[in-house]
């Protein structure tokens, strides 16, 4: 065994140990949060987990595979609706459907949350697979526009298939099943799966397609299947995230899943750094926290002894200014295409410590 190989093995063991420790710390923190923190904090933590799931999976198609697709609102909507319809109690269905009654088999169904969540994810995957065939015939901006169009058509369908979706009135009275364990458990699973996929030969094929589709095809990569794989995997996780979101908010309507939702997610992955899973995670957390934190500007506050009555809309003004500034000064996002690794963290910590030591001399 060569020495370099030996260090590689030890560093591998070290990384695994550090990762497991980090997971354990996260687990303890979630246990603590679940039992001792306020409902408000728990809600924010849940939202962060769901946004991480969507951002990481959206990044797979948009960042890693380089296909400018604007579909997440559609996939979230499918996941949310399928899960909610399957898990909603029949009594609540009768009460909600005031325009037209729900069609028969659906009106009686009431499944367990995990089962409906899984079906929601799988159904979204199926739709994604069916969509992939026509959609990947076009590229670039046209792909963006076609996927945006699918999202809009889906929204119109949700508005008009009243016996299934209750139309624009949406579904209400969903049971708040989404706990920290569900959201963070699935979040960790998503990150794990996506990272493994990106580092596998499939992931390398995706990156090859991003860099140069024709060259990749010349190397024997089937670009269409590679894109379809990224698209369907991302659809599964987004469908699951949709189900989680629905059971966090407890009410859904087609209006929630408009193109604004996709814009928010696109913002998250671009601010994080397109193509970087780490960036997507960081940026999802930052943007959710920022969105909550900026609410203070809409509440009455006192600054330098002056009393200000909160102004509705102020939050979004500051948010959009920040967004523009970030894009002007860091046009490749906070992480670029870099990923997190324990080695980099340790090196960085060492250089900090070294810098401090040198500074002392």
């Amino acid at each position, binding site marked *: 065994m060569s020495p370099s190989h030996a260090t590689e093995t030890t560093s591998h063991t070290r990384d695994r140990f550090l990762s497991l420790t980090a997971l354990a710390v996260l687990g303890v923190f979630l246990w603590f949060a679940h039992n001792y923190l306020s409902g408000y904090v728990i809600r924010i933590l849940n939202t962060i987990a769901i946004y991480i799931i969507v951002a990481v999976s959206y990044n797979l198609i948009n960042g890693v595979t380089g296909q400018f697709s604007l579909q997440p609102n559609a996939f979230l909507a499918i996941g949310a609706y399928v899960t909610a319809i399957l898990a909603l109690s029949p009594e609540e269905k009768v009460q909600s459907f005031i325009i037209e009654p729900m069609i028969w088999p659906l009106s009686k169904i009431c499944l367990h949350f995990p089962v409906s969540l899984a079906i929601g994810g799988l159904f979204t995957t199926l739709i994604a697979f069916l969509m992939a065939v026509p959609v990947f015939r076009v590229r670039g901006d046209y792909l963006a526009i*076609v996927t945006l169009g699918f999202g809009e058509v889906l929204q119109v369908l949700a508005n008009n298939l009243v016996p299934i979706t209750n139309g624009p009135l949406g579904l209400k009275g969903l049971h708040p099943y989404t706990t920290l364990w569900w959201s963070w458990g699935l979040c960790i699973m998503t990150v794990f799966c996506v990272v493994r996929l990106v580092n596998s030969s499939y992931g390398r094929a995706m990156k090859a397609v991003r860099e140069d589709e024709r060259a990749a095809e010349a190397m024997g990569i089937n670009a269409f299947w590679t894109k379809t794989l990224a698209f369907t995997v991302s659809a599964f996780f987004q469908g699951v995230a949709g189900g989680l979101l629905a059971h966090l908010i407890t009410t859904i309507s087609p209006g929630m899943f408009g193109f604004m939702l996709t814009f928010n997610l696109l913002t998250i992955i671009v601010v994080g750094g397109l193509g970087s899973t780490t960036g997507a995670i960081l940026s999802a957390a930052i943007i959710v926290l920022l969105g909550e934190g900026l609410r203070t500007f809409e509440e009455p506050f006192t600054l330098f002894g002056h009393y200000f009555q909160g102004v509705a809309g102020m939050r979004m003004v500051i948010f959009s200014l920040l967004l523009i500034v970030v894009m*002007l000064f860091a046009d490749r996002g906070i992480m670029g295409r870099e990923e997190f690794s324990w080695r980099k963290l340790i090196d960085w910590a060492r250089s900090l410590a070294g810098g401090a030591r040198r500074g002392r001399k």
Partner: protein
Amino acid sequence: MDYSFILQQIVFGLTLGCLYSLVAIGYTMVYGVLRLINFAHGDLLMVSAYLAFYGIVIFHLPWPVGFGLAIALTAVLGILIDRGAYKPIRRSPRISALITAIGVSFLLENLALVVIGARPKAFPEPAVFVGVLETGTLRIPYMSFWVLGVTAVLLAAVLVVVRRTRIGMAMRALSRDMETVRLMGIDIDRVISFTFVLGSALAAAGGIMWCLRDPPLDPFLGVMPGLKAFVAAVLGGIGSVTGAALGGLLLGLSEVLIVAVKPEWSGFKDAVAFSLLITILLTRPTGIVGEELPD
């Protein structure tokens, strides 16, 4: 379903379509030159309408002055947006520019919300725009003539500018190859600014007519027409001025006719536009009138 009923709906559809067209032309010109989907474009509609509102109601300007000033100021705002938000990142990845455009759009909407408030305001209605022409069972509001007339004049003017003038030629050249145009010694920024002026002024005119027709003014006024105009621009073949105009008319007509002829399908009217869009893109990816774009 009689003959005059259909004719009546065609008039309404064309009126709506003209308004979409005016906004769509701005989208398409900026896209042609910069390859940027300028999502803030729809919000210029709202800005111009508020400017006109304040000019006439608060400063008591006569309406032609108020409208003219609103259009001019919106055109200036168009340049400012380009210089402030888009120019610094012209060499960045295109998706960053897109996010910036979305940021600008949010900023305009919410700034209006904070500064002006969400309560809808009544847009002034000068007497020349009010009234209905009755011929038999057909009723055509004077506003429809105004919209059709103004759009025709503006469209003709834009086409002349784009096809017959030097700056128009520079614009067309720019959409082919920016680097070569730069090498030819043409001031690119001037051409881009001119594109924004033209596009913004058209959107401003569209916004004012939009509010003259249906007066409530609110900060989110531009969102719907903006999105529809974008669809119209793509439908016609993004990058082409005539395509945008045709796309707008087609969209307006199809939206109005489907609701009038089949009221029970009115929920599907937005789907029609987008299904049309998807079908056209998948079968003829360059739109009705349009040229091949780079990936």
